[in-house]
């Protein structure tokens, strides 16, 4: 069939996208901050708080959460075409719009993660807080660490799911229009959160504990990814067509196919590396080689999370309901 269109907009043309890398980075950093918030809560609550004793990640991770989230929000702000109208997001509640959920959810997540960071800051580091009222607040919030941790956990899970729901709600884009996508994005968010926790933790027990957790999360991702593609392949023609960029090694879709190949290589390697790490004896300090391996596998997981966001955001816009 030969098709000529008079009056076509650039945006309807497949090689020009609606959303670009800024949205991909927003989804990745939003997921990372959500995953790290959940992991920071787990670190504080696990074994009645015994795991966090003597571990700087107990306060570094909660500080990083709003910082990473802020950078992510900066990217979505940069993507808005009419930035001065951004206040309308907070004058409207549209329960059917995932972007509306997100803007309100982030408005809740930001202060909650900030308060949690204050509550987890050790007394001897209160001098970091320049203002006296902040120091007093940090002191008072210690009493509410448990409820704050629970709220932080809940909001973190919500944001992790939201990053997937944002894409999956579009019937017009078959690649995104899957109920597995929010679950995959949540698992990926938790996995990259655990990976970052491994990188910033200083004690062996915490590094190994999160390594064990990340093994399960990577395993879950490795199950969900093929299930997602299987679900798409066995669905309608448009859904089947939507995943083809990932499996067609033509020059047009080379980026997607290579990304998928990288994903199917780095996740198993990271998994094997992590399994070897927990089998090794770590009586004293971790050897430099063991640290390098741990950080390398964590970087692989972070890279995998970024690849998932980049490829899914771009490839979804190539897909079309027919």
């Amino acid at each position: 069939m030969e098709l000529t269109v008079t009056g076509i907009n650039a945006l309807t043309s497949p090689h020009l996208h609606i959303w670009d890398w800024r949205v991909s980075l927003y989804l990745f950093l939003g997921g990372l901050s959500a995953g790290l918030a959940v992991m920071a809560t787990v670190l504080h609550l696990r074994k009645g708080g015994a795991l966090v004793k003597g571990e700087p990640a107990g306060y570094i991770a909660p500080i990083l959460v709003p910082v990473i989230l802020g950078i992510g929000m900066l990217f979505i702000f940069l993507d808005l075409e009419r930035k001065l109208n951004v206040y309308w997001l907070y004058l409207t509640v549209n329960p059917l719009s995932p972007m509306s959920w997100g803007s309100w959810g982030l408005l809740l997540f930001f202060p909650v993660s900030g308060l949690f960071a204050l509550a987890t800051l050790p007394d001897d580091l209160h001098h970091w807080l320049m203002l006296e009222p902040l120091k007093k607040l940090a002191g008072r919030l210690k009493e509410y660490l448990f409820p704050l941790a629970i709220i932080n956990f809940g909001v973190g899970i919500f944001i992790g799911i939201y990053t997937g729901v944002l894409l999956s709600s579009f019937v017009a884009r078959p690649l995104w229009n899957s109920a597995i996508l929010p679950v995959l994005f949540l698992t990926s968010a938790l996995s990259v959160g655990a990976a970052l926790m491994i990188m910033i933790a200083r004690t062996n027990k915490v590094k190994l504990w999160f390594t064990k957790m990340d093994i399960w999360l990577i395993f879950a991702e490795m199950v969900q990814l093929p299930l997602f593609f299987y679900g798409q392949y066995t669905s309608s023609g448009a859904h089947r067509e939507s995943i083809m960029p990932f499996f067609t090694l033509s020059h047009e879709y080379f980026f997607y196919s290579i990304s998928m190949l990288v994903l199917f290589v780095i996740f198993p390697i990271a998994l094997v590396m992590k399994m070897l790490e927990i089998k090794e004896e770590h009586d004293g300090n971790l050897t430099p080689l063991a640290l390098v391996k741990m950080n390398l596998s964590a970087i692989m997981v972070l890279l995998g999370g970024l690849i998932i966001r980049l490829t899914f955001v771009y490839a979804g816009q190539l897909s079309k309901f027919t």
Partner: protein
Amino acid sequence: MPKYAMVIDQRRCVACMACVIACKNENEVPPEQYRTRVLEMVEGEFPLLRMELRSELCNHCDNPPCVYNCPTGASYKRTADGIVLLRKNRCVGCKACVAACPYDARYINHEKGFADKCTFCDHRLKEGKEPACVATCIGKSRIFGDLDDPKSPVRIALRSADSTVLLEGAGTRPRVYYIKKFSKPE
């Protein structure tokens, strides 16, 4: 209250593109951007060829995904007549509506930044006129009117021939109907 709809009688389209030009002129659509388009689809093998001409525009859906996905309420469906419109002062240009539309009927106006689309020439309707594309259509392929009025041109056109809508499976319940030139594939 009227229930506005459009019928595209594909049998009468001559692909003159006057609708595309009239729309751009009427609505001051920026260069290289469009609210409506005409598809020319040539199928078959020479000499057994056939061509389908299809005008496309915003379908003013009764179940509009662009409205549901708008986080600021900028996109809305006017209850009085069912036209899907945009409050430009509220639009943040997040592009959720552009991604949500299965008809690719929306675009970001690159001069002003909002998510623009066809309004059925709402400003002309207020003056009692037809949309610009309908008024200019020399083949009378574009037909506009009130679905609730049995004497309106759209009701007459829909009564006279079998019609269909685009992407019915998307569940959007469009208000742009198509009377096809070819009833079934060759």
